[in-house]
């Protein structure tokens, strides 16, 4: 049952990205271009998503000890702001600004098979692989960070 809902969640997520326009890099880049051809639409995507997720998660965690088809909620518990988080986010943002794709939209747009997408996705996977094989270079790296 959990497998069916995982597939369904992915499908709804992908359709949401398509409906919202976020699977279109031109629209994402225009959102990021405040001083040019600005298209504020994506603020509404983020707003709509959080407006559902925040109360949804809150209700869920208040009313249930476990998920419906699993035995534990896997929610990150860390709250330290280590350099690795900031470095990763900063690098991610640069890539996002260069191509207009983040991972979800890129995978959703993959079957449309635009040349740029077909190039982006394998390089994204390579980047993920590289990150997992990069030692933590920050000074506090050995203080028990994951």
């Amino acid at each position: 049952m959990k497998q069916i809902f995982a597939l369904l969640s992915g499908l709804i997520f992908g359709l949401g990205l398509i409906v919202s326009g976020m699977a279109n890099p031109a629209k994402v880049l225009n959102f990021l271009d405040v001083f040019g051809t600005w298209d504020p639409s994506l603020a509404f995507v983020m707003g709509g998503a959080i407006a559902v997720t925040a109360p949804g998660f809150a209700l869920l965690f208040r009313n249930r000890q476990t998920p419906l088809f699993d035995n534990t909620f896997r929610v990150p518990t860390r709250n330290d702001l280590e350099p690795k988080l900031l470095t990763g986010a900063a690098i991610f943002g640069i890539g996002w600004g260069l191509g207009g794709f983040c991972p979800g939209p890129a995978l959703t747009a993959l079957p449309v098979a635009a040349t740029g997408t077909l190039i982006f996705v394998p390089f994204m996977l390579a980047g993920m692989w590289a990150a997992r094989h990069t030692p933590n270079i920050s000074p506090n790296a050995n203080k028990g960070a994951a």
Partner: protein
Amino acid sequence: METEFTPWLSLGGGMMIGASAVLLMATNGRIAGISGLTAKIFTRSSDGEARGVSALFVLGLLLAAPLWLLVSGGWPQQWVPSSPVLMAVAGLLVGFGASYGNGCTSGHGVCGISRGSARSIVATVTFMATAFVTVFVMRHLIGA
């Protein structure tokens, strides 16, 4: 090139994304973070069930556009403006940064902010800032 401002469609699509995140948490107890789920598929050390669930979620993502084609008779409207070389560099940076920083737009931006996670709020502000600056530099300083 200009794109049309679509507040209602974007709000509706965003709410679907939120519904998906709540559904995955309610049924599987997992964060709908695309970079994390994708990485899990390729990580041999993660347990089989986690890999399976992650793979099915990503399969659902991949099926969305074909389903859209089937129902509407056309692919979703899309344009990839950046050059192939730029897309390769962008892919590397996005993949590396998302994995190194433990999350992307979905994991930090949607799920993390919804949980009130300080890490996710800081990460989201950071990647938004570098993305805005990158586009400004590319479009208005370099003129690419």
